[in-house]
């Protein structure tokens, strides 16, 4: 709890200090916010051994290995995104302090989501994230496309929230409880009640919106394209991971017995999501839109892991650890890529792939990090993305003998990977060998952003070359006993 409170106080503090800060120095508040988040991040390693899952608010809020893992994940993403925003600040006309604090609030929502063990907290956390993102998405008020993205996100997000609330109401109406731990005990007797299943389906639909799974992916490309670069990055990493932890909690903590029957549904959704994301990314010219589609594809790969978990709900270790590993690799990869975009597209009019032309000459560092990121996203060794995909494929094929759908899913996944090579390599090609580059002036990369680029590159390489420690951690985290002991008092 203390972590969330600290983050919240930090966000409010930024808002307050803003009142006494001269306008030209406001952007530097971001450094303060990032430093505060870093402090909280470091602190999270000292206070919490979390050998035993602990609860609060009558089991509504749980802190276990999984929650801690995700909290650190979100904090790490938050730090990088905040620092990215400092670099981005001059492209935002007004309200930069609010920009920072809204990022912090969204972060706070994600951290609550990591601990949600009750539908109430789940809904509150999700709304906190989404509402903050509505504003953040349309923060560049003079850009029409940014406003458009905000409105689209608002309308579709509200629709998804409606699904979620309706579903929660149905589940509560049939079972009389909102607590995951109690639901887990009661599921068996309700598993055949259509109303309960409908409610549960609506909840999963609402969560599917957050992770941009088919058929709720429609918003992603538009919003990714329109939002300011740091927000797109935060959406791609933080918001998606929050969707996955919520899905994880609901599927495997609240109603594992139902989930076990839904393996085939998950397989189909994962397969379509992978294909849809990759195929639609092929013709894209706008690089942020391309990332929008590629993030859909990656949601599909992660859903593959969820499906593998669902195939054996008693033993979710393999699939779960693959998801956690993949997300961690994805964090470094995507944030590295967006950091490059943030720096490289500073003066570019359009955000086309062609505006990256000649980046190799302008800044070899940026081009190198972007190349690493693309190669890692495509899933090629020795980078993080490869090992993540390897773990996912292994988890899926592991269940192939009992459910042949997994073989088809693995087949779809590799087709997706091959398709994705085309557009990822297209980005690399634009940077290294596209003729007719007009602007070849060297590009300035500030010290802090340079350090962040090194961090992201090191993260991608480390996770690809020395996967041992993180694999152990994720296996431990994913296999940890459920927080069943925290039943309501």
């Amino acid at each position, binding site marked *: 709890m203390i972590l969330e409170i600290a983050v919240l106080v930090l966000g409010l503090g930024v808002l307050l200090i803003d009142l006494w800060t001269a306008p030209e120095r406001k952007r530097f508040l971001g450094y303060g916010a990032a430093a505060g988040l870093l402090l909280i991040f470091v602190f999270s390693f000292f206070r919490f051994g979390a050998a035993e899952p602990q609860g609060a608010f009558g089991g509504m809020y749980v802190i276990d290995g999984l929650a801690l893992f995700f909290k650190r994940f979100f904090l790490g993403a938050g730090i990088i995104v905040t620092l990215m925003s400092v670099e981005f600040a001059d492209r935002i006309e007004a309200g930069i302090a609010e920009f920072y604090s809204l990022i912090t609030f969204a972060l706070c929502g994600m951290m609550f989501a990591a601990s949600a063990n009750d539908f109430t907290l789940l809904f509150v956390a999700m709304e906190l994230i989404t509402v903050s993102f509505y504003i953040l998405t349309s923060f560049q008020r003079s850009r029409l496309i940014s406003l458009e993205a905000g409105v689209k996100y608002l309308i579709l997000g509200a629709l998804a929230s409606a699904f979620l609330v309706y579903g929660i109401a149905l589940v509560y109406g049939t079972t009389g409880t909102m607590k995951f731990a109690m639901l887990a005990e009661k599921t068996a007797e309700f598993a055949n009640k259509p109303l309960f299943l409908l409610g549960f389906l609506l909840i999963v639909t609402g969560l599917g919106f957050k992770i941009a799974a088919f058929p709720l992916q429609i918003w992603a490309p538009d919003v990714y394209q329109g939002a300011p670069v740091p927000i797109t990055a935060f959406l791609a990493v933080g918001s998606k991971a929050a969707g996955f932890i919520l899905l994880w909690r609901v599927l495997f903590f609240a109603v594992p017995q139902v989930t076990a029957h839904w393996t085939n549904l998950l397989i189909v959704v994962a397969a379509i999501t992978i294909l849809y994301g990759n195929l639609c990314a092929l013709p894209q010219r706008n690089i942020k839109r391309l990332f929008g589609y590629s993030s859909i594809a990656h949601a599909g790969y992660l859903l593959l892991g969820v499906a593998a978990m669902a195939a054996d709900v008693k033993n979710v270790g393999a699939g779960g650890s693959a998801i956690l590993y993949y997300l961690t690799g994805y964090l470094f990869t995507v944030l590295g890529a967006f950091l490059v975009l943030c720096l490289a597209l500073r003066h570019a009019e359009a955000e086309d792939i062609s505006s990256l032309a000649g980046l190799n000459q302008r800044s070899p560092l940026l081009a190198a990090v972007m190349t690493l990121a693309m190669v890692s996203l495509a899933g090629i*060794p020795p980078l993080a993305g*490869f090992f993540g995909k390897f773990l996912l494929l292994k988890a899926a094929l592991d269940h192939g003998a009992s459910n042949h759908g997994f073989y088809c899913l693995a087949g779809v996944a*590799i087709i997706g990977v091959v398709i994705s*090579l085309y557009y990822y*390599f297209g980005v690399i090609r634009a940077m290294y*060998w596209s003729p007719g580059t007009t602007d070849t002036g060297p590009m300035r990369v500030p010290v802090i952003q340079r350090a962040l680029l090194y961090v992201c590159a090191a993260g991608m390489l480390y996770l690809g070359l020395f996967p*041992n420690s993180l694999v*152990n951690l994720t296996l431990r985290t994913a296999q940890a006993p459920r927080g069943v002991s925290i039943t309501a008092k």
Partner: protein
Amino acid sequence: MLTAIVIVPLITALLLALIPRNFRFVMRLLSLAATLVTLVLAVFLLLRFETGSADYQFVVQRSWVESLGISFYLGVDGINIGLVFMAALVGFAAACVSWEIKHHEKEFYVLLLVMTGGIIGAFASLDLFLFYFFHELALVPTFIMIGLWGRGEQKNFATFQITLYLSLGALIALVGLIALYVQMPAPVRTFEIPRIIAYFQTAPLAASAQHWIFPLLMFGFGILVSLWPFHTWAPIGYTAAPSATAMLHAGVLKKFGLYGLIRVALPIISDDAVRKQWLWVLALLCLGNIVYCGWVAMRQRDLNLLIGNSSVAHMGFVFLGIASLSVIGITGAVMVMVAHGLLAALTFGLTGYLYNHAGTLDMDNLGGLLKKLPFIGTVMIMAMFAGCGLPGFANFVGEVLVLFGSWKTLPWFVVAGAWGALVIGAIYMLRAVRDVWHGEVAETATVQDASAWRKVPFVLLLAALIIVGVWPRVLTDKIEPSVKRIVTVAGLPTVAVVK
């Protein structure tokens, strides 16, 4: 020592990445030195290898990802010792011919060294994961090198075609390998190839599982080796690639798929029906390589396309040897792999030289070059003779062993294969010799023969071809015991190699 062979190029690549790009000469020197060290170490390895033993030697094992049973596990036996040596030799030769690169030298040498290290690592790995990991590590630089330093109008098309084909092949093989891994019950799961094979020897894979895992491996690895009809990437890709890349890929990296078939796929098929069915399919497809691609090669007017197609055709022999599942046939297949690696590197190095000096490889515009390029011409003609399977060169030994080994099980395939190799091969090779080196002197610019320094890589490769050709036992005696073990595992009676 084995670790050093793999690590030296990779460490040097890292070192090069830190050197400012203006020090071109230093970079060339460093990469030459690194590949030379690798080569010297590989020669030592070959000399100190204990002939006649089927065991893995120079084994190194360090744990890497404990929870999944993945380890850094290297070792050589008869099957890969020759390949490691050949890879090191070709790596050095490729570094030698890279003088032709005139822009972005830094990136080129970094990628070249990564590729060399990756290739040797893939051949030396005894861990399934590491094996795949190193292969991918070497594969990606290939794509980038063709895209960035490639030549010709079809460069972009070739880059994308080779990228998509080879990635698809590699991923299919990966699914096959993981599927194999998960067939083992959870407590004994391991990525160590020797232990996997030992396990499946005691508890054979269910026939139904063999029926789909083996084809996955066969087609996955097959695409990587340009198995007909998945070969179209090869000639176009090699035509567009810079010489060093074509040498390393056509010569060495491509053999990964064949090596994987022999090392992993053959020992797991213990079921007779599976063997009959799929090895027969393989034999049928390899005729596509030998006869059809040979036929295509006859129609080429571009020297590189001709050599690219003939290289695809040569792969057919390796497939035929593998499909025979006899000791002699597979020994011959390994021999062809080594011989063809040296040969492909030699010919692509030479055509690269020719292209840089004459500005074209179109045989209509070349002619009478032997007068102007006596050294390059002579070496090229010898290489082409080796390519038609003339005795005295290593290729002859391998092809003859394959044909002998396959006679018992696949007689009609041998007849067709012999036609493809000896007749069709001779036609296009000799025609190329006539058109390029003899006849009217074409008005192709000012061409210069190689200086002493440029001769080094060609002399080394040719010498290796001839030495192995006249003294094949230097390799066959090493290969045979290991092959025997694999064939025994696959459950067939063994027949000794004719000496």
